[in-house]
């Protein structure tokens, strides 16, 4: 460090921007290497509110960095607080997703081998996976993080729908992918049942906990598939247009019930 320092006039001209380019450049070059002169500039700063900017900076770095999924949601245009509420759901933790993919993978593999029983297995598993994941995404028992959110006056309906859509956006493509691997007559046959079951779980969660509803729906579906498999030995029954129309009607009716009864969603608060 040299003993040379900026004189007060030069410093003043620099801060007030009444200097020439050459002088300004020379001042800037000196400032880069002279801590003392930088210290003399700082008190004169009036271009921005340094204290306010410090507050914002500290707030930004103190917030933990959002997860990849949360940043994805924000990039998709969801407001920051919505993205946070959706992303904290336990269903979006890595382990859950991996197990879902694994289950589907095994079922698809079994079906892809071409065995009729494998096809049945896939038809049994694929439609219930989305509703199980949806249920676990807002079940208060599985998601302790939900508790403070339920006491805050955040619209429950909005939260559940946001999470449901996010789950479906994740789970449906996964199931779809495995469905394409399966060389069945109709790889999309499970799609309408899946949507129907999600709607049933939503509607049922105005009475019981979402997870119980999802387990009940899954049990019934597994029993039905089992019975059909035992009787006809071919998965055609589920693929018929009549059955598909039935699932569509189920989805519509359940969603209607869910909307009508949404005031009872507060029963999700277990401590009430």
């Amino acid at each position: 460090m040299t003993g040379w320092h900026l004189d007060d006039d030069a410093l003043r001209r620099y801060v007030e921007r009444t200097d020439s380019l050459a002088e300004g450049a020379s001042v800037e070059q000196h400032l880069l290497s002279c801590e003392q002169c930088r210290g003399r500039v700082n008190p004169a700063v009036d271009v921005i509110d340094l204290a306010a900017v410090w507050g914002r900076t500290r707030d930004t770095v103190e917030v933990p960095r959002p997860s990849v999924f949360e940043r994805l949601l924000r990039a998709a245009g969801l407001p920051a607080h919505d993205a946070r509420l959706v992303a904290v759901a336990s269903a979006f933790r890595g382990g859950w997703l991996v197990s879902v993919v694994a289950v589907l993978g095994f079922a698809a593999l079994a079906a892809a081998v071409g065995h009729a029983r494998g096809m049945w297995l896939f038809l049994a598993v694929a439609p219930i996976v989305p509703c199980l994941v949806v249920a676990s995404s807002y079940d208060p028992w599985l998601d302790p993080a939900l508790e403070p959110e339920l006491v805050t006056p955040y619209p429950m309906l909005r939260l559940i729908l946001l999470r449901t859509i996010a789950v479906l956006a994740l789970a449906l493509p996964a199931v779809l992918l495995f469905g394409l691997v399966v060389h069945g007559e109709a790889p999309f046959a499970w799609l309408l049942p899946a949507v129907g079951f999600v709607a049933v779980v939503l509607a049922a969660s105005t009475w019981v906990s979402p997870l119980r509803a999802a387990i009940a729906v899954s049990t019934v579906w597994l029993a039905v598939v089992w019975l059909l498999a035992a009787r006809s030995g071919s998965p055609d029954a589920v693929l018929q247009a009549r059955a598909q129309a039935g699932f569509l009607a189920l989805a519509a009716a359940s969603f209607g019930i869910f909307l009508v009864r949404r005031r009872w969603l507060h029963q999700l608060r277990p401590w009430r």
Partner: protein
Amino acid sequence: MDCRPGDEMLLAAVAERDMGAFRTLYERHAGWLAIRLARRCNDRDLVADAIQDTFVAVWQRPQGFRGDGDIAAWLWGIAIRRLVSRLRARSSVAAVFEKAEAAPAAEDQVLLSVDYGDVGQALARLSPEMRAVIQAVVLDGLSAREAAQLLRVPVSSVKTRLYRAKAHLRAALAEGPS
């Protein structure tokens, strides 16, 4: 000279997530960075955003400083690029690079020519557009592309202006003061 911790020590502490050191670093550098940025962009909100981005980046990647040169120079490199990317994001805001040129008083002109000699005079005779390019590329060390984003002109214009400005300066300095 004094026993205050140097910037390198502060940066090392920031890497250990020391908020106090981070604050000291901010207090030492945010001011002059803001003034220098404000000389390149008249929108003060943008300058404030760029300062915030700069220190958030420092917090997230303090190891970006490789130990060569001054930390101040490293911070400036981050700050000017953050300003450029803020400008890019806000395409509607017209950033005014150079203030409306108030003609310096005659005695100031004389002082300048005494203090800075031929180079100062030669620079002062350049058009504001050329000076802006010289400042961005030669003095601030931006790439032609970054300078183009800062000045809101095509990259090709930056290159031509830089070429012409250098030619002007060369000619002016070869001639000597007129």
